[in-house]
């Protein structure tokens, strides 16, 4: 006779999924983008896309992974737009100090130590910053991080190692 294994069903109700996943996702992407407002906007947009397709998406094995994947892509779009904006301004010959850009990170951390760490994170390459944010802040596994970033597990590990090494080295140099 087969043993009965209790199965904890993943929440399929949209509101429950939203309430469970929204805040961790926003926190992770806040570190990745340096701005809670941008992170909230990306995550809300991802959820709103899920909302209109919820009948289909709720049938997926992990609907949250779909939403996270969309949100990560939106963050990448945001980065690309920002880079293009900066590049265009550079091409026009404007001096960087004349350019009005939102501070990065936009939300000034409370203490100086956190501020220095935020600067170091902002200086990381995009992939490393995103991987570190999802893995260390949102507490995803390597596999979940890889799924969200459309990368292999090995690539995610590489980015995480590189990010951690860069942060530690810079942190020790400053100390």
């Amino acid at each position, binding site marked *: 006779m087969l043993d009965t294994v209790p199965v904890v069903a993943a929440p399929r109700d949209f*509101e429950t999924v*939203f*309430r469970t996943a*929204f*805040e961790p996702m*926003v*926190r*992770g992407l*806040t*570190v990745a983008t340096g701005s*809670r407002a941008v*992170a*909230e906007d990306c995550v*809300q947009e991802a*959820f*709103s*896309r899920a*909302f*209109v397709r919820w009948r289909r998406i709720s049938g997926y094995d992990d609907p949250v992974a779909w939403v996270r994947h969309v949100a990560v892509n939106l963050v990448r779009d945001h980065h690309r737009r920002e880079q293009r904006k900066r590049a265009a301004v550079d091409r026009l010959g404007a001096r960087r100090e004349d350019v009005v850009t939102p501070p990065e*990170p936009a939300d000034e*951390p409370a203490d100086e130590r*956190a501020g220095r*760490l*935020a600067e170091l*994170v902002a200086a990381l390459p995009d992939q490393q910053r995103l991987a*570190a*944010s999802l*893995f*260390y*802040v949102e*507490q995803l*596994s*390597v*596999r979940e991080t890889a799924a969200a970033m459309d990368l292999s*597990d090995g690539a995610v*590990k590489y980015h*995480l*190692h590189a990010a*951690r090494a860069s*942060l*530690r080295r810079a942190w020790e140099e400053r100390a």
Partner: protein
Amino acid sequence: MNDHDDLDDPGLAAALGALAPEAGGDPYPAAHRRFVRHRRRRRVAAAAAGVAGVAAVVTAFAVLGGNGTDVAGVRTVSPAGGPSTSVPAGPTASSSTSTTLSPSTTTPTSPSPTAGPDTPAGSATSTTTAVAPRDETVESAGGTVRVRVTPTSVSLLGSTPAAGYTADVRASGPEDVEVRFRAGSSGGTEHRIRLRIRSDGTLEREVT
């Protein structure tokens, strides 16, 4: 978890987590309004796209479905429209019986025996008799021709050239229909289909 064995760094996780403190409050009500707006915009966009698609299809039919329009090598002629249904007055029409008159045939001649009882005596007679036209397909080596035949007229419905041939419509009715199919450029093989209504109402076919 194995994934975390060599990557775990609680200190770093805590420091990074401190950069993004948890926000208080319930984000769902505000977000829900955005979701509903998004869904409404999406529905409106889908409806607009549907209307535009239908309008495009209707326009395409209106443009391509007119009388005598060539579409992809097939010439179509409206079966009930144009001059193809008019019947010239003459001994053939006047001598024919009611079964030889096509729909909407006007014969400005003396009263015929088929005129209805309501027709005033001595006036020009307008007789409309329901005679079902028949469609026929005539084939040649160069292509096929579809025509609509009544006892007094023949009109071209469409011509379909065979592979390698082009159709040249010389006459589309009502007295005769002639279509020539040519292979290649000038000087190539030519096949001809010529159809004509005889005085006795039968269809004369000439296929070369």
